[in-house]
Structure formats: C-alpha cells, structure tokens
C-alpha cells in the first residue's frame, strides 16, 4: 500500500468509531490527509463514508476515537467552530436556503468570515459582503443570477451554488459529499475543473461513486467497506486491487 508523503497531515483520525445502537457504521478508522491533497473516499453504499466525514465536520459526535486537525484535537469542537478553522462541508443531498436568493445564500457563509470578534461585527459593511458574494458566484460561473431564488435554479446550477457557498466560507479543508451525483457529463467536467482550481489553495476530501471522476481528480484514494478502510493508494493501484473489486462487486 503506497504511503502518503511524510508531511505533517492536515487532517488525522485516530481509531474513529461511530456506533448506532448495535451497528458500527464507522469502525476503528485511521485516516491521514496531507495538506494540498485531493483525497477521494470511495466504497459501496453503507460503507460509512458520509458518517466518517460527518464526524470530521462536526455533524456527528464520535462514539470513540479522535479527530485531529493541524495537530490539534478537535473531537470536542462544535460544528460552527470547525468552520472558522476552515473545515467546510457540502451535503450529499442539496442543502440550500431554497426560498432565498442566490445572493442571500452565499452571503451567509461570506459574512461569517467578516465577523471575527465584536469590533469586526460592528464595522461590518454590506459592501464587503457583496464583494465576496460576487467573487464566489463568478468563480463558479453563476455571476448573473444573484437575485434569483435558489429553488428556481436547475439542479446542476444548484450544485454550483452550493460550491459557491462553500468557497465563500474560505475553506482550508473542503469536504465534498458526492458532488457529481445527478449531474450531466458537461456539468461533471465543469465541476472537475472547479475542484482542481480550488485544490490549488485548499485540501479537498471527496466522497465519490463516479470512478472516472476519482481517476481524474484524486491524488490518493481511500476505500471503505462496512465501516473500515480496506485499501488506500493511488487511483491506479486501487483500480487493480482485488480486494476492492470484491467489495464493490460482491454486493
């Protein structure tokens, strides 16, 4: 199994577990993500991928184990504090503010960054927020539709809007949960370009089912099955791994 370069990891999990009743959705997972990587997490349905990243971004509390970020133990850190550390999560199922305009959708994460400390909050001007919103929308190609309601957008554009929101939050670790699901081929390619652009300044953790996307984007791949990591390596190595094939095909 190929190892990640010996640089201090940005994100680390130690023996991370999540149990629901008698079922261990995530079982003793040691994950290490280096800064600047694009890491794909793949595995059959029910493997525990969303549960794992849920514990990383703070949605879920681990049953046992630790999450370390930049060397600090953040296991007990609340979800909103993790955002300020740079951990940004986009949901598997579209999670927008549906009845609000695209501008308002992006403004919410954008303004958070401008609200560090009491003095900053008082000095907050809508103009500063507007600049960030427009930049984020432009970077995903949605510049013209700021005033439209989020739920009036086509599905593909909604996914892009979510990406714009994530970007406005200034991610250091961007976690994308099945971003290409439901997208047309052209949209998928656009998304891949965007992810590559983002990866120049942030680390990306990507849950994906779409193998061509994984092959195109990921530097390293982590394979999960039944709550455990069963393989890790470059996309090419993983493609050829017999154990991985069995996990996917044996379903």
């Amino acid at each position, binding site marked *: 199994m190929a190892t990640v370069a010996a640089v201090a990891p940005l994100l680390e999990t130690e023996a991370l577990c999540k149990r629901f009743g008698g079922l261990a959705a995530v079982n003793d997972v040691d994950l290490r993500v280096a800064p600047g990587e694009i890491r794909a997490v793949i595995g059959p349905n029910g493997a525990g991928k969303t549960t794992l990243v849920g514990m990383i*971004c*703070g*949605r879920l509390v681990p049953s046992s184990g630790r999450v370390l970020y930049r060397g600090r133990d953040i296991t007990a850190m*609340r*979800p*909103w504090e993790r*955002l*300020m550390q740079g951990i*940004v*999560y986009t*949901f598997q199922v579209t*999670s*927008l*503010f*549906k*009845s*609000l305009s695209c501008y*308002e959708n992006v*403004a*919410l*994460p954008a*303004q*958070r960054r401008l*609200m560090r400390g009491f003095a900053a*909050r008082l000095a*907050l001007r*809508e103009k500063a*927020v507007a600049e960030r919103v427009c930049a984020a929308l432009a970077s995903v190609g949605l510049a013209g539709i700021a005033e439209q309601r989020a739920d009036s957008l086509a599905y593909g554009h909604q996914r892009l809007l979510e990406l714009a*929101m994530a970007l406005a*939050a200034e991610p250091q670790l961007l976690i994308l949960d099945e971003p290409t699901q439901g997208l047309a081929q052209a949209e998928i390619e656009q998304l891949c370009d965007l992810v590559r652009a983002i990866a120049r300044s942030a680390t990306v953790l990507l849950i994906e089912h779409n193998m061509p996307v994984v092959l195109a984007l990921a530097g390293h791949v982590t394979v999960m099955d039944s709550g455990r990591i069963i393989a890790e390596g470059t996309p090419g190595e993983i493609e050829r791994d017999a154990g991985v094939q069995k996990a996917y095909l044996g379903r």
Partner: protein
Amino acid sequence: MNDLATHRVLALHLGVLALLFLAQFALPEYHHTNVARIMVLAAYALGYNLLLGYTGLMSLGHAMFFAAGMYGAGLPVYYLGFGAAGALGAGIATGMLLAAAFGLMALRTSGVSFLIVSLMFAQAFYLASLYFNEITLGDQGFILSGKLAPLQLGGTPLGFHEPAVKYNAALLLFAACFLLSLGLRLSPIGRVLIAIRENEERTRLFGYDSFRYKLLALVLSGGLAAAAGASYALLFSYVGSTFASILFSIYPLLWTLLGGVGTILGPLVGTGLMFYLVDIASGITSAYLLVVGVVLVALILWFPQGIMGTVRAKWLPWLP
C-alpha cells in the same frame, strides 16, 4: 441589498410612521384611543414576529412576556411609587430576564415540543398571577391612574389620560419596536436568523452557533413584548391576569399570521385589522371570538402568507 432598495425600504417604513403621526389630527375620539391601543398591541405582535417570522420558532406562551412587562411596570408603580420611565425600564428588564431564563431551558427543544413547553410555562405564569392574588389582585386587576405621576417635559406635566399624550407615547413605543425590527432584519444578525429558520443545520455548519442566535431572538422578542405590556399598563392604566391568559398568547399569533408572517409591516396590518374585526363583531354578538376562529382556519387553508406576505410575493419582492 443595494442602496436603492434600502432607500425604498426606509422611505416606505418611515412613511408609515409619518402617516400614523399625522392620523392623530384627523381621527375622531373613539378611533383615536383605538389606534393608540392598536399601536401598543402591534408592538407586541412585532416582538412575536421576530421569533416566528424571522427565526421560525412558534410559541404559544408570549403572553407571559407581555404580562411580565405589565406586572414588571405596574407593580412598582402601584406599590412603590415608581415613575413612568423607571416602570417602563423595570417592565422591559423583567420580560427580557424571563425570556432569557425560559430560553436557556426551552431552546433545547424545537417544533411542537417547543410550542407545548412555551404554552406550559405561560400557563404556569398565568396561574401564578392568580395564586398570588393578594399582590396581583388576580383577574380583577388594579388601576394605575391614581398612582402614576404624569410625565414632566420641560416643566409641563403630561398626564397619560390625555389623548394626545397617550397616542404619541404609543406611537413612540411602536416606532421604536418597528425600527428595531427593521434594523435587525436588514442586519447580518437578521440574515443569520432567517437562515436558521430556513435550514438550521446548514447554518450551524457555516459557522453559526444557532442556539446563541435563537436565544438572542427570544430575548429581543420577549423584550419587545414586555415593552408593549409595560406601555399598556402605563397608558391604559390597567393591570390584570387576563393579559397572561392563553387567549393573549394566541392573539399575536393571529395578528402576525393575518398581517403576514416574516414581514415588518405585517404585524401592524394584522393587529389593526383584527382589532376592528373583533370590535365590530362584539357589537353584533357576545360570541365575537368566533371571528378569531374563522380567521385562523381561513388563513391556514387559503392564505398562509397573510396580507403583506401575499403583497410581497405578488408585487413587492423587496419588502423586508
């Protein structure tokens, strides 16, 4: 929101206040007092709207905040000889403290649970006001007019029984609550509250401690309700248990829904309209609360956005 929109919004809302100010010179006496009453009650509705319309939390217990303001102002005047300003402050403080204490306990729940918890707390408050009736004089209540010293403005005494004083004090209260609501709505905090209403988990993952924001909304909401309660006691001179009853928790829900949940102008419109509907109905029958029932059902079935909500959806999307 860009500058043009802000100017439009400000012009409209200040215009409404100006209209209310001018109306006092045109209104006949009966309606004069009514409008004063409506303005105070609309402030109550504004407080309620802050929680329901802008944070998405439905409460059936706001009467306890209104009554906290009422007793918080009325009792010191009646027993301790407080002046109007001190009483108002005491009333508002009581309401906000109660809201904070309530929020710290109740905000762990949401949805229907929160609604029932608020109902239960308010009911306990109401029963307590009856239980301690040596102090509060329960249902019967007590009158302040003998005990309340008139305001002194540059040497001229302004008694609250004078229509002009009553009207303008009520207008001042309403304007303060109105502009506070508008300001909050247009502020970054307002944006967060609306986001919490729409999708709380998403908001938390974007860096906001939703509990703290909900608590803030609840304390402000309780504060506005208490300000209305305190003003009602001072201006209309009566303090009694009925204002802590369940019906008085249902009223702001009704007024807000009718006027348009989540709009700034809605509470005023709803309160005014409902006040007159009930007024007219009570002239026809003693079963005038039937109007309340019919309006509530009609709103839910056909008109959930209320008046200003429909206006906003159909014609004026920039309305906050």
